[in-house]
């Protein structure tokens, strides 16, 4: 049986290397493919929570990573993942991405149809919060 495929190694590494990290590209290993990147700005009133709903159209639950700028115009983009109120500093009145919720009505999650991003404004005035979701064409189930 033939052994064929495509391999591109890092500079200085041999194409026969058995180490996956030595490869820039190797058809033996699946790569995460970006299906689409979604961006937007949520205007959130003082003390309110707003949810952005992205219809990704994949019909399966994809891998997703989410970034947000919870303190508007700060230039600080937080990686948002698994714990409640991630990103920013709620004590200082920043906004935060809500990634744990007592039920599945709200919160930040992905399913076969949507990516939902829930953001709460802990401050005393309306804020415009930028967000970005990178949706991969690979299953996150």
């Amino acid at each position, binding site marked *: 049986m033939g052994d064929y495929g495509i391999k591109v190694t890092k500079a200085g590494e041999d194409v026969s290397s058995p180490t996956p990290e030595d490869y820039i590209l190797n*058809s033996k290993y*699946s790569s995460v*493919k970006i299906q689409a990147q979604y961006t937007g700005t949520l205007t959130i009133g003082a003390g309110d929570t707003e949810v952005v709903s992205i219809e990704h159209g994949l019909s399966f639950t994809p891998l997703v*990573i989410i*970034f947000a700028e919870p303190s508007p115009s*700060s*230039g600080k983009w*937080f990686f948002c*993942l698994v714990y409640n109120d991630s990103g920013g500093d709620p004590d200082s009145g920043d906004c935060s991405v809500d990634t744990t919720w007592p039920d599945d009505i709200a919160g930040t999650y992905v399913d076969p149809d949507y990516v939902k991003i829930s953001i709460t404004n802990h401050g005393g005035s309306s804020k415009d919060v930028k967000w970005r979701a990178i949706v991969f064409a690979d*299953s996150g189930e």
Partner: protein
Amino acid sequence: MAKDYGIKVMKAGEDISSSDIRDILFSSKYTMLKYHSDNTTSIEITYGDGSGEIEISHDLGYVPAYIAYMTEGLISYPLPSYFPAPFPFGTQYQQFDSYADDENITLRVKAEPAYGVWNRNFTDVYNDYYNNNWSVMAGNNDGTTASGAIRFNAVDLVKDESITSAWLRIYVGYKGAGAGNLEIQTFGIDEDDTAAFSGSPMGRTSTTAVNNQSVIVPPTTEYMGIDVKSIVEEVTARGGWSRWNALGFKIYDNSSPNDVYIHDYYNSYLEIVHSGSTTFNFRVIIFKDRIDS
């Protein structure tokens, strides 16, 4: 007619015409995150500090996508991560997060209470004004001298341990209406493992170390601090001291003005900051893909 060209590599056994995007190993139709750098770093937090951060420069000039982990040996925790208790010395939670800007990736750690800080509410109290074991009191209550004592069991200090600080935090549940400073003297109870209070402990042997204090009593619901570092060090240097023994303190009035006193039933505590530090290690993979545009 639009041309359809590019590179597409399918998983083994899958047809190149498959409509299931998951069957594709890679395709020139889809962008992939492009590696920029792989970084390791650490944050050392001195005991007594509740937070720390460190920056990793990426030199990209825009805000890049990235993934960050906190690493412990072979275990990696993706950031943000939140860890509830238990931790040494009473830290109740620690959390890690990260953000990117156009110059750096910043990693942050936060703990509450601060790392290396041990505190405990009192287990026993005494006041000689009412001659009971319901509350601690010190000062002058409407012309009558008031002194008291307070005890903490299961103290997390080993024998001869060097500490950064030790404070009695006396809660101002009640205070006198008089003017002027509260004048008090605080001694330790010079015993290896002072027993629970039953009646007055004021006759127990005092430490050589003493804190003489002249202070304005804070408003009610706030705390007044008494520095007991040298007292604690004297007791824990005793031959019979061992970890989890009990510490006691006696607070004497030292000619406070009329009706200047402090009085608490519930909330006073002992706070010890250990000497040392803790280090957290991180790995951050930065991509060349921009997220702020």
